[in-house]
């Protein structure tokens, strides 16, 4: 009997599930209306898919969950963890305190206290000043009871994470190993405020991610499925649940990424503009070399500017006339390949549009998001900043490759088949000594 994968896509108006065999054949589909709570809808979708005769629970080896709403706690300001926010950067950075730009309701819900302590690195990796461990210890004494997670962000941690690692050590010595610690150098790239915001969100979302994982696992056990559980990341790749609990910010907005990858899988096309027409919202994105194109610059989650990397999609209300303009823009930026249309309302997109030579409507396109989750590869990525000198670049590139591969394996990729799939080197401008941001993504199949 063939090993099965179940892909689940949870949206605002409904939740879909698909079952796929090891030859990528679609065996069964199920859809349930959203019944108020996300966890309930996901449970209903799982029960519906195993009710199909083609799906033998004992054959299901992997379950992949893509859920934009899974972490609804952020927007609703409920169910977030209380986070003690530590910034390592004093005496610099005091002009903008941590969380200064957050919506006040979210800030009140998330923050267990904030502190800026002396420390951090220069842009070339040298220590700026000594890390003030005493100040961190005193701060933890004050917030230790209330804090459920700690977020640590150091100036130039993407260049040199030493002070963040030392601070994390101190936290564990004082509060024990159980406490969740998010470190900014593992979360984002240059730009302290956006990286710090992403790090605090990551720390705050762990509880919601955990409750979701517990609920899904309970449902799986109830229907007799003993499978490895994966969550979809924002870029549409996958991570195993244990990894997701450490990096829940990587899955706050996985819908577009999984849908675009699903469209790629169904159409067999690597370069395309993808239009996904949902019940209430439609979006237009681009597929470049099989990967959803990312937005450059900061992204916004629940009113907070972050350095999280998200697909570059343009959203319009379904049925709105501006969709044509969004398609035209995306087509100009990605002239290669056809237009791939997926989603329930795909009939709303005409066969002829300006600048579009070919429109593909793949079979089963209405399940593109769930299918995209089910067929995704497992990936991990890592980024560092370094001076652009040949020897430094070589050393750091090797370190980043190793770290990205370790990340992908930790996220559930098979160690024997994981490989580097993307190396991105970007120069930083206006520097006296030229610097480089090196970013590597490694990926492989789940096992």
């Amino acid at each position: 009997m063939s090993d099965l994968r179940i892909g689940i896509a949870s949206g605002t108006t409904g939740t879909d599930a698909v079952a796929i065999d090891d030859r990528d054949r679609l065996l069964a589909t199920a859809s349930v209306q959203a019944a108020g709570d996300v966890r309930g809808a996901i449970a209903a979708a799982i029960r519906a898919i195993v009710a199909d005769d083609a799906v033998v629970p004992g054959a299901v080896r992997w379950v992949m969950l893509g859920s934009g709403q899974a972490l609804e706690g952020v927007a609703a300001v409920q169910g977030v963890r209380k986070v003690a926010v530590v910034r390592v950067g004093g005496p610099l950075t005091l002009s903008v305190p941590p969380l200064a730009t957050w919506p006040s309701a979210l800030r009140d819900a998330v923050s267990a206290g904030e502190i800026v302590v002396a420390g951090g690195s220069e842009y070339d990796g040298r220590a700026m000043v000594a890390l003030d461990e005493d100040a961190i210890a005193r701060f933890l004494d004050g917030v230790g009871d209330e804090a459920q997670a700690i977020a640590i962000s150091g100036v130039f941690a993407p260049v040199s994470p030493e002070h963040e690692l030392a601070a994390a050590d101190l936290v564990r010595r004082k509060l024990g190993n159980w406490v969740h610690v998010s470190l900014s150098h593992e979360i984002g790239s240059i730009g302290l405020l956006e990286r710090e915001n992403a790090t605090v969100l990551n720390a705050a979302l762990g509880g919601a991610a955990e409750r979701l994982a517990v609920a899904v696992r309970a449902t799986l056990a109830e229907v007799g499925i003993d499978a490895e559980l994966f969550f979809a990341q924002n870029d549409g790749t996958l991570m195993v649940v244990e990894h997701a609990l450490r990096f829940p910010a990587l899955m706050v907005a996985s819908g577009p990424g999984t849908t675009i990858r699903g469209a790629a899988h169904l159409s067999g096309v690597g370069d395309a503009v993808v239009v996904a027409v949902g019940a209430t919202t439609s979006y237009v994105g681009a597929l470049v070399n099989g990967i959803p194109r990312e937005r450059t610059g900061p992204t916004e989650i629940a009113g907070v500017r972050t350095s999280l990397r998200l697909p570059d999609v343009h959203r319009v209300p379904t049925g709105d006339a501006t969709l044509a303009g969004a398609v035209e823009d995306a087509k100009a930026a990605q002239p290669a390949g056809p237009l791939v249309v997926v989603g329930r309302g795909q009939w709303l997109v005409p066969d002829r549009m300006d600048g579009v030579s070919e429109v593909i409507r793949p079979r089963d396109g209405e399940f593109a998001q769930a299918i995209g989750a089910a067929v995704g590869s497992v990936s991990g990525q890592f980024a560092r900043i370094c001076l652009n000198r040949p020897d430094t670049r070589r050393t750091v590139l090797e370190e980043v490759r190793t770290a990205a591969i370790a990340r992908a394996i930790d996220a559930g990729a098979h160690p024997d088949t994981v490989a580097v799939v993307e190396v991105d080197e970007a120069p930083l401008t206006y520097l006296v000594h030229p610097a480089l941001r090196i970013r590597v993504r490694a990926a492989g199949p789940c096992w």
Partner: protein
Amino acid sequence: MPKFRRVKDMLHLDASNLPALARGCSVLGAGGGGDPGLGVVMAAEAIKRHGVVTVVKLDDLDEAAWLMPCGMIGAPTIATERIWSGDEGTVLREVFEDLHGGQVAALMCFQIGGANGLLPVSWAARCGLPLLDADGMGRAFSELQQQAMHVAGVSVSPVALTDGRGNTIVLRTADDVWAGRLAREAAASLGGVCAAAICGMRAGRARHAVVEGSVSLALRLGAALRAKGLGGVLDALGSVLAATLLIEGRVVDLERRAGDETLTGSVTVRAGSGPAGMRQLRLEMQNEYLLAFEDGALRAAVPDLICVLATESGTPIAAEELRYGQGVAVVAAPAPAIWHSGPGLALVGPRAFGYAVDYAPVDGGMEAHV
């Protein structure tokens, strides 16, 4: 000190108009100068704690009142990471007052374009001093000595520098080119970016040495950019900046070479299609957009401002943010008059940036064919 004028009549900067100021500063950055976003957050924080910033005109000040032109030197990218302590302006003021032996009456942006249009606002709030409605460039340039004050004979030196963590450096230089060169080296030693005060002068000396009205212009521009759609934005830029639309199309070619200190490259924007209808505009850039050519003919040149706006939103796009395929409108607007003088063009004309062309007004001063 301000003469008798009721406070409520005077222009103020507070949380309500900082975003508009930032939008205006982005346009005046002409593609460079760094993102003013962090400056908005800093200024909002400083104003929340220390009160609103009054914007004064030269006429509001005594002839003998000292002005402190200030801003940052170095890499804006680094400034978004090792964020300012907030004390920089206060430290600069102390050093400046020591150097010049007089009290500072008002701060002034030495560069209105980009991030430097906002940074002195937060320093003014913390110092409890007004900000002069003027700057040293009327836009953004990459070299410290590319100042209207330099053209007018006000020395850039002595230069006061601080890194926000207790280190200060004073440069007394042989000339203004040395000031720019040494300040850049000092910024590197101080962590890649630092705060600077230059061109110390009294209000009487400033009268024909600064670009007046820059802050209020940036505010008007920022308000104009809120107009609905690209058409509205272009109309507004036309009336506020006397801007001319050079082309509206898409980025079809983009070449960027990152050097040690400068982002150099060129970008081609195409409009229309077919042999008869197609037009192409090529922009040359070095941190800022500097030249615009169509069919080999120069349509606009530095020091005039060349700005690239997103078709969709009308928001300005920095040279480092441009993307292939993006829908854009390119506009050009005349620079402040001081830059059109002989010494002005020698300092910031095309040849100063290594291009073998002479400056010509936008579309040769002719009516634009739009």
